């Protein structure tokens, strides 16, 4: 009765802006360059950071320690673990690593008070670079960007919405929810208009998850 399905087509939250088609190499003509880093894996992890069994088991499963200092993240290659609250982390990874991580987390955390939830459809990232990247962000967020050192991440305002924000290879990485992506991109483009904004091709080495 059922016919073979065609290969599923994946769409990123910012698909509608056609960023892929307008992206080009960064140069000096724009103060800021941005693009979406689509199709990553996102895993929400909850558990007490004071629970040594949890942090040890999660570190084992991820091959990377959980950041327990507020507003920091850890990274190993393509995997990044972002502190969200004293009992919550967001793990980002290449999409094809997601299933393996979900399963190793589920196995490793068995019997430990915790929660692992796949959130890969719910988030995306935007990278912002260029000489005015910080200026543009100062129009968008109330956060003191001077206090956002390397390795630090903050959940903060973006216009009337919110993002997680950290420095990433000569720029900034925004982690945001799918349903707000349209608003956040439009707001970013508008904030950047005094400086000029271009949609950049960020090479494979430039994704927010893998640097």
């Amino acid at each position, binding site marked *: 009765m059922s016919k073979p399905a065609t290969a*599923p087509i*994946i769409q990123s939250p910012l698909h509608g802006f056609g960023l892929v088609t307008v992206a080009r190499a960064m140069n000096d003509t724009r103060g800021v360059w941005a693009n979406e880093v689509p199709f990553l894996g996102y895993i*929400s992890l909850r558990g007490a950071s004071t629970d040594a069994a949890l942090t040890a088991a999660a570190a084992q499963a991820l091959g990377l320690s959980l950041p327990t200092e507020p507003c920091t993240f850890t990274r190993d290659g393509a995997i990044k673990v972002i502190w969200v609250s004293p009992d919550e982390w967001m793990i980002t990874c290449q999409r094809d690593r997601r299933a393996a991580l979900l399963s190793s987390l589920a196995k490793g955390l068995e019997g430990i008070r915790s929660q692992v*939830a796949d959130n890969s*459809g*719910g988030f995306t990232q935007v990278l912002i670079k260029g000489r005015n990247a910080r200026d543009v962000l100062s129009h968008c967020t109330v956060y003191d960007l001077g206090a956002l050192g390397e390795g630090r991440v903050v959940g903060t305002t973006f216009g009337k919405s919110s993002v997680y924000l950290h420095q990433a290879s000569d720029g900034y990485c925004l982690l945001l929810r799918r349903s707000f992506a349209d608003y956040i991109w439009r707001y970013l483009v508008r904030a950047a208009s*005094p400086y000029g904004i271009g949609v950049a091709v960020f090479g494979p080495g430039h994704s927010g998850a893998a640097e």
Partner: protein
Amino acid sequence: MSSFRVQHANARVDFGKPLNFTFDGRRYDGFEGDTLASALLAYDTRMVARSFKYGRPRGIVGAGAEEPNALVQVEAGAMTIPNLKATQVELYDGLVARRTTGWPTLEFDVKSFGGRFARFMAAGFYYKTFQSRRLWPKFEHLIRHAAGYGNTPVDPDPETYDHQHHHADVLVIGGGASGLLAALETGRAGLDVILIDEQSEPGGWLLSSPNSVIGGKSAPVWIKDCLAELRSLPNVRLMTRTSAFALHDMNLVQAAEQIQDHLPPSQRITGVPRQRLHRIRADRVVLATGAIERPLVFGNNDIPGILTASALTTYLNRYGVACGSRVLLMTSNDQVYQGACDLADAGCTVTVADTRYASNTEWAKRAAASGVEILNGFGIARADGGRAVAGAKLVKLHADKNEVAGDGPYVACDVIGSSGGLSPTVHLYCHDGGRPIWDESKLAFIATGTGRAKAGIYCVGAVTGEFGLQAGLEQAFRTITDLLTSLGKTPSRVASDVRTNEPAPAPPRRIFRVPDGKREGHGKKAFVDFQNDVAASDIHLAVRENYRSIEHIKRYTALGFGTDQGKLSNVNGFAIAADALGKSIPEVGTTTYRPAYSPVTFGTLAGAHEGDTFEPRRYTAMHGSHAARGAEFEPVGQWMRPWYFPKAGEDLHGAVHRECLAARRSVAIMDASTLGKIDIRGKDVRDFLNRVYANDWTKLAPGKCRYGLMLDENGMVMDDGVTACITDDHFVMTTTTGGAARVMSWLEKWHQTEWPELEVYMTSVTDHWATAAIVGPKSRAVLVKLCSDIDLSAAAFKFMDWRDGTVAGVPARVFRISFSGELSFEVNVDASYGHHVWEALMEAGAEFNITPYGTETMHVLRAEKGFIIVGQDTDGSMTPFDLDMAWAVGMKKPYSFLGKRSFTRSDTARSNRKQLVGLLTDDPKVVLKEGAQIIETSNTRPPVPMLGHVTSSYFSPELGRSIAMAVVRDGIGRRGEAGVKDGRDVVYAYAGGTAHRVKIVSSIFIDPKGERQNV
């Protein structure tokens, strides 16, 4: 021509760059660096406005934010800006401005005739017109026509605005001598410093006083050197044309920057905002806001050509405009003398009427050397002139008392400047709770240098009452040293040299209202507040009418209102009120200083929060599909949901009719992605659900779903949704679209604060899942084409089951649940594939004419089944019992649940509560208005007992008639049989003047036994 240009080297205008502009239809020339005011004054312009109440001729009085009269309309059409102060409008080539008062013309003003009856229009005139109910409508028409200034633009603003946030160790507000010194010292100490100044260039009063000398340098050189050093410091940011208009708690300062206002519209850069709102959070705020000279109050002091003495000085020194040839200055202090000397040196004949019997001897010497005539102990009793001042009658003042002691000369002049002393600009200091202190020796309400240091607020220079340049700089240096010490820093090794050429000061005379020898109200009108036409006599009248608080006197007389907010008039008003009340000035106190210090455009406040970035619009993964199919959207919370999908020529009703029938008879499809989804996991998850939901979750087996009602502490329904048991320790809850965030916080709150012992965690997965609801008798036939790994048969996959499988090649979780009463499958996939799966379903359903539908059809379908919408059929006062949903309450659960105890409250347990029922109109075509009142009879003569109201009302295509839901007192007991069309009990639904006869019935209109969803 009495005004003339003085092309001196210190002027801040570029005489090599002439500009053209138009004022009130006449063409003029000016120079780059001029303001509209300075350029007009150079043409000897006197009258630029008519006064608010009496239509009196008015001219330019000030030189900055304090200007009360010269309100102009700049540019036209979409670019027009009303009520700018001519003193703050930077001239550009081609600028077009016009007056905002004077009707029909400035020369011939209708209101001026009313002015002849001024004694009938005294303080409180406006309020007094209220007293006649019969006459007020007539007054109102006249007053509305007469009031107001410029015109607001009616076309959309073509320019853009934005906001920017800053953080700094030190924010210095004001770029005058003290502010520059403060920025320099804190910048040298390595602190992160922001200096903002509202003018086109920093310098403050020094720009008006180029003959001052600081540290051996002339003022222009000192400013230049300061700025060069500040610009060389990477830790110092300098912003000009930026007016700090509000100081909030925790040292948050809001400032409006005029980025492009000074450029001709044709030269403005596209993409760059016209104005920008800066929000600056600073560890320390240094207020170097200076002071504004207040004029003396005397008879006819509002004749055009009478300015503040400091304005005359500014126009000469900064703009190269001598505002008259024969200058009469009246003063109570030393401040006018430098200007007097400068005017005399520029070729004016200058007379100073110094109200003091003895002037400062050094100043007297310098003035004499410049040829200035000084008349000691004299004041102006009244000025003469119509549309331009022509002279002034002086009187000899009593040495100690402000009374007339004798006659004085008549001085013919073409311009008058007066100075009653300086009023510190304490506005920002007071915005977040600071109170200014009256200093009798300074005759001013002052801010203290370090009085608010604990809050991180420091004040330097004239705002502290140190009006002299020397004293101000010394005070600033001391205060900044304190500030640096508080941060563990030391002042720069080479202390700034702040020695000046200023003579040691002499004390001022305490005088505000210059006496004319007559009782108040009997001489020539002496204005305190020019913008609101408040005279000294009005304040006396208010006091005679028993107003005691200065706040009440302000509101009765309108003293200090308007676009200038009383910057010239307030202190004079307080002093005159104190006199009239027989109190001291500190006993009278000040009115309240509130943001904004000076007007801020709406565009600046809005910033980027307009157009398509006005408010976040949330979109689902299938949005592109809906847009491509021509959906109309409606906002639900912040989500943009398809409302209906009109085909060509179809309206809302037509589309909904078609969509409803497709769902009932064939197959339809809806995007349900916006519902909140919360993943809940832990060994105590059933316990947790039992506590936060009214119903029982103990026995729900994996693979099953259940509808839940969530109550608040009062037992009232706050949310609802279907929750699925994935495994014994893992559930997925759905919430209403608008309630998702609230429910998530609610769950976290109860878990974190009351039940931390429960082993459970929850995570929002709303954005992760995209959900397509396939609805209708043919829905199984559609889904089976795309899903081979779930047995979709009625026997294997029952109503209220869920299964994991693959749909269109994508891992999916399929729920067999229904918000329509029809056979229905809700397909949930990773939202990255939401668009793909939606399109696959549309393609698979094409043979059944699968019909996408929106929220409107969803509402009709659920109402036909009597399913509630929380927030529409409930309003925070409905219990499950009121909704006839006792079946969703597990009263036997071992542990209590939220809201349970409240069921026994007397008001919750009583009879006669409003209960949810269905309504059927006698006339099946009548669709009741939602909100219509339910009443007992068709007699609508008040008072009419109100039994309840209609909560939902639609036309049901399936039934071919209207249906409605309503809450009615004791309604459940009054229902007819479920679905029976002739309910026993008849009431009326009243709205819009019509009472429709309705029957109370069950709210389940279709398929009362629920057979369709089980097929």
